[in-house]
């Protein structure tokens, strides 16, 4: 029961080439997991440190499939009214008011049957993602920010692709979304949620892949410099830092180096620009200390 028959998702190679085509360089593991998510119709739980391209992956998939990206940003205090649906109270009130004025069916049963219909329903991201005729990509971002109890809101959508509204009944998906959840792993997610997902860890890329990402994302970057940058960043990540440089930071660094006209990594230029890569004074000192 795959989600999409799109030719981009028929095989692992097709996913890999397709994502490459929309400027996202997937590892073999990423491509395989995306392919499986489609084939098994399961959400992907994407976990990993900040700045390794978790959100970017969802965006790339939506570009690849030319599907709308529906994004639900999680935060502490998120509730069903903001995640799934809400009744449009003011509109319901207006409907009741106008019924009193007499032009419509004024009986209570008529009004009641009327105000709890789709017309008075405000779609929030989760409901929006499964309704409509064209399939979407649903991104539930930073799911580790909501409380464990709130995770339960997602379960029905994630495993059955449906939403139950008490006054209304169960809304089944008219289109199957491809779902990605991201987590920065600040807390353990509930078993129930994890069980429903395929797991994908996006760690820091290999030197080779990072070099390719840099050359792809930074126009005008020479192959040689890209290699040096990826090697040096890989070295930094091996140090015991408070915050290791992410991929987006190494991209920023490459841009900085280019705009300064550097063609190779000299000590001086590394010293004067390393604050683009490292955000803590202690980390900077540690890295500089190695350059003697």
């Amino acid at each position, binding site marked *: 029961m795959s989600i999409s028959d799109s030719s981009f998702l028929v095989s692992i190679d097709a996913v890999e080439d397709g994502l490459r085509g929309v400027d996202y360089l997937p590892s073999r593991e990423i491509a395989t997991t995306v392919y499986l998510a489609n084939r098994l119709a399961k959400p992907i739980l994407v976990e990993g440190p900040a700045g390794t391209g978790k959100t970017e992956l969802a965006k790339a998939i939506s570009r690849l499939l030319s599907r709308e990206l529906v994004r639900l940003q999680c935060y502490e205090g998120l509730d069903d009214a903001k995640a799934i649906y809400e009744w449009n109270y003011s509109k319901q009130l207006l409907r009741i008011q106008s019924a009193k004025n007499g032009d419509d069916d004024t009986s209570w049963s008529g009004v009641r049957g009327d105000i709890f219909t789709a017309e008075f329903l405000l779609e929030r991201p989760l409901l929006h993602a499964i309704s409509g005729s064209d399939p979407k990509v649903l991104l539930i971002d930073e799911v580790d920010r909501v409380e464990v109890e709130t995770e339960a809101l997602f379960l029905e959508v994630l495993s059955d692709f449906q939403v139950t509204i008490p006054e209304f009944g169960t809304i089944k998906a008219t289109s199957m979304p491809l779902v990605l959840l991201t987590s920065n792993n600040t807390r353990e997610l509930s078993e129930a949620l994890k069980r429903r997902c395929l*797991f994908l860890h996006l760690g820091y890329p290999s030197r080779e892949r990072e070099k390719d990402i840099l050359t792809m994302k930074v126009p005008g970057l020479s192959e040689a410099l890209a290699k040096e940058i990826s090697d040096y960043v890989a070295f930094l990540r091996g140090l015991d830092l408070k915050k290791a440089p992410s991929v987006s930071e190494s991209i920023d660094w490459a841009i900085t180096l280019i705009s300064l006209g550097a063609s190779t990594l*000299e000590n001086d230029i590394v010293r004067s620009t390393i604050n683009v890569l490292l955000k803590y004074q202690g980390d900077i000192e540690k890295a500089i200390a190695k350059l003697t």
Partner: protein
Amino acid sequence: MSLQFDNFYDTVVEFSRLLRDVRVPVSMTELVDATLAIEAISPIDREQLRVALFSTMVKSESHRKVFNTVFDVFFSRRSNYFDSSESEDGANASSGDQMGFGDEVDLEGLREMVIEALRGGDPEQLARLVRIAVARYAGIERGRSVSGVYYSYRTLKQLNLDAIYAALRPDEALELNSVAKVIANDKVEDLVDSLKSTLEDEIRRILVEDRGATAVVKTIKPTLPQDLDFISASRDEIEKIRHAIGPLASKLRARISGRARRAKRSQLDFRKTFRESLRYGGVPIEMHLRKRRPSKPEIFVIADISGSVASFARFALQLVYALSENFSKVRAFVFIDAIDEVTDFFSQSTSIEEAIRLINTEANVVHLDGHTDYGNALEQFTSRYLDDLTKKSTILILGDARNNYHASKAELMAEMRRRSRGLYFLNPEPANYWNSGDSIVREYQKYADRVVECRNLRQLEVFVDSLT
């Protein structure tokens, strides 16, 4: 290479059982997903198979290493599931015939070739060479139930790891600027790692061929980070434990402050009540209360850093460090036979290493002879800091309660408990050693809310979870 597919479901079930044996939880649904995933891929591709099984059965990155070990053994090319047409070559290669050289290549020559293969980044050549090296030097004895660490050690010793390092290291004479040198040195480590892992693969392959995958997994017994023992953990293992502490510290915060949030009454949230009242035409039927801001809990950590718990102490300080990033008020104390406050060392230093270095050099923890004395530590604590304890304070004492037959002064702990919100004693020793020899857990058990056996992260997590 082809896959024996007829009983593949049994294979997957067997595999999941092995994962459960090493405490990676695999649920029934996940097992079903795994089989569906395998049907969707081509399982003769080992890497596809690996991702299919990993993404469906494993839900935590910290389990990856253990998963990979089990996977590599279980689906090693010599196991029953891949037929061994390819690895037949391997068996022949060990005689040297296929390589185009026979026994005349001596140890020196072999080392040179290994170095060449590492430099050139040629994994296949490396695998062939390692196969020869293992056949010659590992001295594998068939039928023995061993994990292979010793075979690996023996082979590396013959190959002379130091010589390999020296050969790979960038030429000092070269006019290299130091960024380039730093990078080059870093790569040497990677290359040596790849040699080691190729070697381990080869040894594992032979072990599996000899005794079967299941038996080998059971002998290797890979351990998840959360099951590593604090006291006996190696440096590498401590590193793994460290990575898992962060989330635990924030969980601890949630537990301790969450408790306060629920307990107290709260005020009316006017805005929300009014807004929700629109539902009922402006009649405020449901009352909404403002969520009370969680109170700021204070943590007092008192850690034994004596030699008997040295590696636990390191872990304990890690925990304190993680806590101090999560709680606004953490006060840290360390002791051996005297106690000293080290809160400032943590706040001043930018890394845990620096903090530990400062504590080791500057903290004043030795009073007489440097033998742990809980009694004296408690006495000094109560005389200096007792008045700082309030009903917001939670005290965590980390140590093994081995007191070298000094006086326990447990009644002082009773006073500390009376003044604070809770007092917990986390002990890294197995519970069945408690109260034997100079361990005086019993004395302190009377006054602590709980004395908890805390030998690994799993137990620490259970403790944190129980704080509701």
